[in-house]
């Protein structure tokens, strides 16, 4: 393990599959004998509300990550990265999907959605370890736009911050998604890994990719 504790905040919008991600990481931790706690905020039954999961690996007491303590923020949606940014530790790792999902307030003209440049600027005041990329495009490339969550997980894994091996994560993915969806989810995961490695200019050898 990189440190004895790892705090992650996953930000998204209802329907993006936050909960699956915390489950995959959680089950992997369980198999790896790493203590963990998860706290989830999923509002009412309506679609489109903000959803946030806190995943705490290693010994912690509160399932909720204290402000400014998360080593990583995984944002499946750019505005949600802003909304949950108060949890990110100074110079923590921020991975952000750049495909916005407009809220009703924005769609009806009652609020404005900040541009990606504005979002990037604001987030870069909090951390230099910021990576914004088109996870949505990669999900489509993987074969299903709903696999954005797995693309993001792949990117996180490529950063080598999680205290378990890629193979263990892939195993958890295979056992947690419906059998007819395993292939596309693993493909999304791999595309996310490659994309992140490219972003940080570490061209991986193919074997490293699958390690």
């Amino acid at each position, binding site marked *: 393990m990189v440190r004895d504790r790892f705090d992650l905040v996953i930000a998204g919008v209802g329907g993006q599959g936050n909960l699956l991600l915390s489950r995959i990481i959680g089950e992997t931790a369980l198999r790896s004998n790493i203590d963990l706690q998860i706290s989830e905020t999923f509002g009412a039954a309506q679609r*489109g509300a903000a959803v946030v999961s806190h995943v705490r690996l290693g010994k912690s*007491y*509160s*399932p909720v990550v204290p402000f400014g303590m998360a080593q990583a923020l995984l944002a499946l949606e750019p505005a949600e990265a802003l909304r949950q940014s108060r949890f990110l530790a100074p110079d923590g790792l921020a991975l952000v999907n750049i495909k916005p999902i407009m809220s009703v*307030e924005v769609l*009806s003209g009652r609020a404005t959605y900040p541009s990606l440049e504005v979002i990037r600027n*604001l987030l870069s005041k909090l951390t230099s370890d910021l990576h914004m990329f088109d996870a949505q495009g990669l999900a489509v490339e993987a074969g299903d736009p709903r696999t954005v969550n797995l693309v993001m997980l792949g990117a996180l894994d490529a950063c080598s911050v999680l205290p378990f091996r890629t193979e263990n994560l892939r195993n958890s993915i295979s056992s947690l998604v419906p059998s007819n969806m395993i292939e596309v989810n693993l493909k999304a995961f791999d595309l996310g890994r490659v994309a992140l490695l490219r972003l940080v200019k570490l061209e991986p050898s193919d074997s490293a990719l699958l390690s």
Partner: protein
Amino acid sequence: MVPLERTLTASAVGERALLMTNQAIARAAIEAGVKIVTGYPGTPTSEIIETLALVADSLGIHVEWAVNEKVGLEIASTAAIAGVRGMTVMKHVGLNVASDILMVLGLSGVNGGMVIVVGDDPGGWVSQNEQDSRLFARMADLPMFEPSTPQEALRMTLRAFELSERLKLPILVRTTLKVSHSSGIVTLGPIAKSKTKGEYVKDTSRYYVADVVAQARHEWQHKQMQQARAILKSLNLNPLYLKKSQKLGIVASGAAYNYAAEAVRNLNLQHKVALLKVETSHPLPDDKMKKLLRSTKELLVVEETEPLMEDHLRMLSYELPQGHHAIIHGKRDGALPETNELSYEIVASRFSRLTGVRQRQNKVESDARLAIAEAVPPRGWTLCAGCPHIGTFYALKMLARKTTKGRIANLGDIGCIGLAALPPLENVDSSFCMGSSIAQASGLAYAGVDLPIVASIGDSTFFHSGITPLIDAVVNNAHVCILICDNETTAMTGHQPHPGIGVSATGKSTRKVEIEDVVRAIGVEHVETTNSFDIIETYRAIDRALKHDGPSVVISKGRCAEITRREARKLGAALLSFVVHSEKCKGAACMVCIREFGCPAIIWNGASGKAAIEPSLCVSCGLCADVCVFRAIGPGLSS
């Protein structure tokens, strides 16, 4: 990975699983050999029933969504009177509804273990209020456990069953939103074989609870609670971490304990502060509390949401010689906020202030935080695209404009219909508690309010507590229109079935209770059923109903769009989208579909200055085609 069903039924003792608190409570009930489990939907505890429903048949457990919490408690506790183990599950406000029977159960007692799980919502994030159920345990004088983690939830729920059977008293388990929805690693225990067949023994000295019986049983209950104190003391509960030199003590329970323990670690206060984790909210651990009061100079009590332990400590301190006990800090002296949810940040900053230990500062300047807060676009609650309630309340809104005063009093109720109070519909006036709308409408009518009066209520809520006030309206001939919004589900809490659906909690088909039959049987003379997705028809139906001199009922029927969406997904069918024909759209001069109607799938295209429809959100309900008088909206062609 082990599927949830396997984990729930696994007999492998010592196996570890990742479970949410609600799932851990379900597992505890299984380990206890529970026979009957009832509940009514409500965040944060709904998942307990949903989890048990997965394995109810294979384990032979009767799991049901009761019509309301009172019925749920009556069923499960009476099964426990017959000697089998029972459990009932509800959210905090559900206990208000169930409280009538709760207050008597301590007198009659039970025979099989009976556990009442209640989920509080500090801050009222998903409820009409915040309310502290620990006060109910005290009022009913029944033991209550309060876990902080999934593992504790399992352990304490199991204990609650055992203790209940020993004391013959029902036992409460209290969680809060943050605890209920947290997950962690849980070690499974053995599954007990409990009684599977109830027996009925007539015993009027216990079960005919009135005057002398009630008096005798009240004495009995007090004896049982004395015994409870002794038993709880002998169990290894309420851990106290106290060292000699510690001047400051913390008393905390539930989620607040998690924040406190985290703050103690993060501020490195382990050697400086003593910590009492309270796991029995009633009866409180007096001995340990007194010990802490005697050993420290200052005490901070961290609890959600009422100062229950704080006041109790203050009371205990009177039993100690003056000047020989700690000063008590908490909500009463403003050390901690008196209302709303606590957080790690609030707790840690109070610890920091009391101990002088500085918190590690977050380096980011507040300007950056401020700029971010300003830039984040709101993403609030809304009705879903294609929600039947949009049709119903748009019709009502248009009708209101045509009335003499241009206004209809529309008393709302709990559930998704309440979201029609938000812009742009802004139609529902109020929301109090389950079923209140109908009697509130009658109240306005009898008060002589000179407006057309409507009570809007969801289908599940109608069954829960709308029938009795409707009878009242009929008997007293209240001139009100009751608008029952039948979306074929209990939507807001996650689409649970209700008596009008014909499906049980475990997914089996059951006898269906037709709302219209109920309403007619009560004696409502004017009853109409209308299609929520037909605005004109709904408008006319409500108009006619309001003209009826006396109580009338309009049942606006239309399936919840979330269910439509899910079914389409299951079938792999694409939902076609409606489209705006931009050449017919009048643009900024009109905007009725956005400013008045407000289906979230209709968006404003700033570039073209016309409305548009977001195909990924649209469910082709067709409502908007009626809203646009220029006929600019219509069904799209298949893509």
